[in-house]
């Protein structure tokens, strides 16, 4: 099967799944999990073929814009696809058990979002076209928004959802700008083509702008400083979603994109230095915040931010080892962090206690969860024989080999020591520590929830013990895919007595000390309130608050409910723009007069229009004014008719008639009051504005008429109308055939505008409801 077919299967399955889940009861979870499991099996089967070379599948989408749905599966994409579908299977199983107490509709809805997210994510990591990648990228942001705000009755969840959407989708817009610039400079949107030939992008004067846009997009998605704040807040999502989106997969998209574009960015050393700077800063901030965090999931979230910072830093480092380190760390992190989230979810589900320090002594009640947590924590701490150890060895090797090694090593040691401490505290406190206050435990182990983390933890050990399982099948092709050239990968547990081993030992020693003195350190850090100002989302609140204040201010000034102010603002703006356009175009051009004979009929019609306008301006009665305006409109329609535009004339006649009928209907509702409350000064102002507006329109019309007319389109449509559109009325053929999509858009706009007006004109609705309340009260 083709890649595109597989994605279609994923989409169809995701859409069908909620209906199955809602009806199948307890079987719903396993049935829904069959979809990601089958996809996992398919991707697993591609390991062999992908090792030989990437699989490419082209589906034309918008050929006229050069946008193809090209899907490309190379080693790096395959690694992500396996993580997405593999962890996705476990997430679906886990979620079915986690949400078993919820109503069927909520369960089905949740699984629908999760599976849709999985589909979008698969499409993002296999898309070769950058525009398609962007579309799928934003889809993941949207689904993340829905999942973070899943408990929509919680105001905090809603706020966090909006925040994550504004940050990630906003960053996505920056990314779109970057992608368009890349496309303009490279002449193609294909990732493979751009990375194969980075010179046009690299040498472009726009390169700094491209880098800035792409980095903003990647940093918002992967929660890098200064956008790191949204990820801990996104922990309001149900735990299965946190494990899936906000640790194992979606937040790595930024890293994914940076790694993909690394062959381009590597050409400019300052980009790497920038990545090292922001990655390192994010790591340090996240480490501090992880020590200060109170809630279990918040600690995990900050450790995820630190890990993402590590990945960004690794991408910024030069040398082939860093590619291997990136791949190894993505794999190791996905395995242990998803496990830890799963386990944290089990603990929270069983105890309804979210604070880390309040938990203790759960090992007896949740023995399997405790075992999985301990295994995953060891991997996170980078102890042998876990895969986390191997990936950390690579991290240090990449840091030591890079040109920026002092910074990278120093930050790496500090932050990894904190990770060791966190791992120790997470594994020991809730399960083996002593609880300060007794709390209720609602349930023990549940197979549906425990099996996933246990499996992942065991996989983590297995890969650590037998690294050859993944070294050549997954890690090597993935590293080659992002490095762009062949690398010898020696992904093994024991490298001998190397500097990396010494650093690892140092990290473990420091981390153990931190873990031992966790309580005093945690409390000391918590009391540093000033850090909240810098590290939390105060900046976001400030920007959002100012934006809303600006909106309120402009509404108050420009849209204060007085129709005359609206009209004045609109006409003043149009006048200003027209005047600017006329002045900047350099002098006036007047059409050559006298080419056409002066037709008396046209003069009569023009006199009619002018009379209508004058009457409308002069009469005191509104009804008379409306009729006079209608007269001008009919005159205009006659002008169209006399100049060979019967369609336009017909439309104008109908519109004028309807206009009079509609305005009459409005006037009938109006109370009969004096027409004007304008002071003489205001009248002068209105008159002046009208005159200026009219003058600009006149000059612009003359200017347009003076331009030589290009008859190419007219002739094209006149010639092709009958043979290609089978119609003699060119206007209609253009509307319904040549430009049918435009017309479709227009009628959609008409429909929505009418719907809006229809809703706004609902009279008596609130009044009637008030009346009902009154009768009830009586």
């Amino acid at each position: 099967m083709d890649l595109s077919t597989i994605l279609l299967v994923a989409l169809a399955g995701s859409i069908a799944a909620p209906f199955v889940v809602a009806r199948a009861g307890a079987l719903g979870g396993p049935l829904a999990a069959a979809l990601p499991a089958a996809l996992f099996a398919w991707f697993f089967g591609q390991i062999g073929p992908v090792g030989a070379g990437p699989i490419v599948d082209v589906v034309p989408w918008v050929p006229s814009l050069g946008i193809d749905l090209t899907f490309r599966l190379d080693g790096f994409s395959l690694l992500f696809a396996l993580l997405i579908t593999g962890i996705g299977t476990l997430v679906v199983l886990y979620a079915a058990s986690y949400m078993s107490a919820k109503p069927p509709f909520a369960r089905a809805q949740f699984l629908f979002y999760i599976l849709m997210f999985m589909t979008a994510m698969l499409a993002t990591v296999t898309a070769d076209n950058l525009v398609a990648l962007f579309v799928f990228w934003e889809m993941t942001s949207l689904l993340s928004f829905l999942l973070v705000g899943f408990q929509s009755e919680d105001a905090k969840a809603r706020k966090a959802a909006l925040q994550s959407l504004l940050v990630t989708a906003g960053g996505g817009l920056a990314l779109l700008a970057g992608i368009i610039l890349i496309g303009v400079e490279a002449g193609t949107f294909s990732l493979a083509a751009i990375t194969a030939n980075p010179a046009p992008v690299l040498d472009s004067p726009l390169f700094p702008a491209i880098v800035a846009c792409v980095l903003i997009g990647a940093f918002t998605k992967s929660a890098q400083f200064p956008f790191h704040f949204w990820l801990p807040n996104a922990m309001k999502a149900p735990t299965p979603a946190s494990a899936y989106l906000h640790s194992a997969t979606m937040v790595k998209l930024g890293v994914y994109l940076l790694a993909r574009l690394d062959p381009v960015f590597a050409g400019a050393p300052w980009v790497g230095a920038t990545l090292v700077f922001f990655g390192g800063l994010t790591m340090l901030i996240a480490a501090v915040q992880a020590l200060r965090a109170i809630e279990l999931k918040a600690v995990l979230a900050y450790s995820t931010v630190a890990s993402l910072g590590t990945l960004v830093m690794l991408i910024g480092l030069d040398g082939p080892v860093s590619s291997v380190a990136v791949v190894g760390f993505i794999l190791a992190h996905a395995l242990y962090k998803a496990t830890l989230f799963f386990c944290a979810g089990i603990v929270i589900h069983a105890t309804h206690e979210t604070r880390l320090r309040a938990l203790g002594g759960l090992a007896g009640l949740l023995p399997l969860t405790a075992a999985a947590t301990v295994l995953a924590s060891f991997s996170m701490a980078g102890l042998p024989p876990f895969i986390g150890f191997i990936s950390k060895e690579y991290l240090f090797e990449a840091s030591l080999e890079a040109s920026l090694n002092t910074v990278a090593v120093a930050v790496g040691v500090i932050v990894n020591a904190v990770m060791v401490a966190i791992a120790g505290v997470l594994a020991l406190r809730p399960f083996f520590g002593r609880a300060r206050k007794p709390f209720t435990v609602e349930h023990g182990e549940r197979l549906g929830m425990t099996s996933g983390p246990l499996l992942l933890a065991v996989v983590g050990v297995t890969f650590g013990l037998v690294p050859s399982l993944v070294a050549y099948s997954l890690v090597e092709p993935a590293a080659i895919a992002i490095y762009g050239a062949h690398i010898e990968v020696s992904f093994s547990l024991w490298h001998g007595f190397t500097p990396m081993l010494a650093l690892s030992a140092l990290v473990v020693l420091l981390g153990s000390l931190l873990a031992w003195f966790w309580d005093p350190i945690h409390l000391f850090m918590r009391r540093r309130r000033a850090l909240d100002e810098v590290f939390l989302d105060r900046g976001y609140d400030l920007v959002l608050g100012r934006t809303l204040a600006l909106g309120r201010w402009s509404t108050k000034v420009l849209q204060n409910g007085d129709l005359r102010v609206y009209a004045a603002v609109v006409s003043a703006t149009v006048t200003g723009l027209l005047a600017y356009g006329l002045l900047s175009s350099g002098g006036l051009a007047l059409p050559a007069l006298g080419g056409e004979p002066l037709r008396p009929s046209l003069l009569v019609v023009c006199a009619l229009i002018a009379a209508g306008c004058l009457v409308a301006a002069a009469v005191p009665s509104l009804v008379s004014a409306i009729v006079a305006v209608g007269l001008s409109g009919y005159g205009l329609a006659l002008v169209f008719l006399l100049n060979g535009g019967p369609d336009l004339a017909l439309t104008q006649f109908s519109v004028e008639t309807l206009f009079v009928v509609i305005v009459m209907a409005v006037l009938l509702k109006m109370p009969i009051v004096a027409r004007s409350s304008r002071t003489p000064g205001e009248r002068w102002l209105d008159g002046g504005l009208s005159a200026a507006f009219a003058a600009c329109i006149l000059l612009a019309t003359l200017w347009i008429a003076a331009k030589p007319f290009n008859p190419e389109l007219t002739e094209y449509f006149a010639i092709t109308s009958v043979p290609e559109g089978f119609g003699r009325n060119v206007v209609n053929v253009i509307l319904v055939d040549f430009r049918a999509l435009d017309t479709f858009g227009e009628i959609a706009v008409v429909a929505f505008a009418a719907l809006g007006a229809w809703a706004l004109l609902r009279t008596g609705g609130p009044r009637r409801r008030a009346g009902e309340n009154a009768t009830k009260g009586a």
Partner: protein
Amino acid sequence: MPSLILTAVVRIFFVIMLLGSLWVLLRGHNEPGGGFIGGLVGAAGFSVLALALGVEAARRALVLHPVVLMGAGLGIAFLSGVPGIVTDASFLTHQWGELAGLKLGTTIAFDVGVYMVVVGGVLSFMFRLYAEDAA
């Protein structure tokens, strides 16, 4: 108050305007006309009815709720483009065929959709404007 003359002739007016609007709609591909103009004329016909005999009479004459009409029109216009995807791989590429000597295309469905959107759109808020109470 509606005048006697208006009340008396309005039904005839209405029928003429409605038939006229359909005629304008159907001739549109070869002669001046089309869905948009036809829709405007049709909407004017219903408005006249509402003006003379009240909104309820016009609503009964329309049978469908204007918003439903509008949505259905949008749907028909959309569906008229679907055959193009199947045969030509391009949305809204119209297909033509002959039925009993009459050339017919999916364009007519598209234009009917436009007509329905315009009639429904105008009348949806027109009826509310004319209504004495909430509608």
